């Protein structure tokens, strides 16, 4: 039942992303709090619903964004899959895994967006996309990764209480 926290939490993340974070760009890049939330959630040990969260987040963001929903579905599911793979391999250093997933996930989502724009809008300068959008976005996502990871760890402890805590 507590898994339903995904709906208000991801909804809040989408609103924060659209209404607040979009107004504070670094060069032309902005933080993607939804992606970071998904990465942090998937890296929690006890979590088993990260793929559901990714699909739900993709649907919610697609309602606001003009990008096709496929891009968000593929991007967010890829982020979660990468997080699950890394969680099994570098489980001793979750923050390192968090940074790797945030970096790779941001680059992957931006690469998908770039490919889509190259076909739909025509000319998109790769140097501009990389230097002015993707790299600043990666930096901003890295900055918010630490507090978001701590918050999502608390959420996972609440959703999946351990025997000791119970």
């Amino acid at each position, binding site marked *: 039942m507590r898994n339903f926290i995904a709906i208000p939490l991801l909804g809040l993340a989408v609103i924060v992303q659209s*209404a607040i974070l979009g107004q504070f760009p670094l060069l*032309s*890049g902005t933080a993607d709090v939804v992606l970071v939330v998904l990465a942090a959630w998937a890296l929690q040990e006890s979590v088993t619903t990260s793929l559901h969260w990714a699909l739900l987040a993709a649907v919610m963001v697609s309602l606001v*964004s003009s*990008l096709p929903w496929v891009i968000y579905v593929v991007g967010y599911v890829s982020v979660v899959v990468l997080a699950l793979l890394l969680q099994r391999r570098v489980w001793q250093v979750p923050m390192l895994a968090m940074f790797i997933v945030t970096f790779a996930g941001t680059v992957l989502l931006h690469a998908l967006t770039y490919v889509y*724009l190259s076909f739909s809008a025509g000319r*998109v300068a790769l140097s*501009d996309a990389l230097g002015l959008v993707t790299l600043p976005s990666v930096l901003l996502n890295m900055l918010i990764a630490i507090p978001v990871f701590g918050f999502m760890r608390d959420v996972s402890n609440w959703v999946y209480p351990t025997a000791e805590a119970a």
Partner: protein
Amino acid sequence: MKNQFSRTIQTTITFLITAGVLVLAFGGYLRSASGAVTGGLVSVQYWFASRTQAIQQFLAAPGDLIALRTRNAELEAQVSQLQTQVIDLQQRANETEILAALVDFSRASPESSYKAASVIGRDPSPFLHYIIIDSGSNDGIQRGMPVVTNEGLAGRIDAVISDAARVQLITDPASSVNVTLRNAATDALAVGSVTGDIELQQISQDVSVEQGDIILTSGLGGGFPADLIVGQVVNVRKLPAELFQQATVQPAVDFSRLQIVLVITNFRAINTVPLVPTAIP
């Protein structure tokens, strides 16, 4: 008899001394002596009074402290309430200022009818330049309607739901607007980019484009009404080897500070796609 005589003398002497002292006092000759005496008395009086007040304060302090703390809390609450009011009033003043400018703009173009809307969000993707406004189909907003501010053209409605709409800004990489350069009297195409810059394309090489030239919508293609301000030329790139020259445009609208926009509701965008000739197999 003798006893009575001596008493009279004593009385006389006492009277004379008293009278002498009074005369000296009224004459101002005893000022230094009286000053020394009263100064000592005042010092003693002050010492007693200050100690008494200190003891009184010590005894009454707990009650005063509680009262002061209560009063302080009340004042702090009042201050925070007033600060909230100040922020609210500043926001209202700011909105009023923007609305006044928009009303002036709409009065200057009375042939169009407008619907004001607040900007409530932006596209989550940093590659795209879209805003979300708080008016939708319930307010008569339809896809393709132009969106302006008092400064100039902002974009056009891209998608509509009942209470909100998404606006594609002219800085979006997929946006292209047919424009005309007022001074050069030539048409061009203003296209956006991922960085939010606007570029003028398809300007003929034999046209003289100067920095500062005003760019207006041309109305060609039926996507936007004519004569809306788009911006002005800030940089021209003219290479002899290329077919067209290019120019960078400074948009008239400050897209980073968009708060309220106007949707032109009596303009219907024309879909020219069916008119584009296709190859017959």
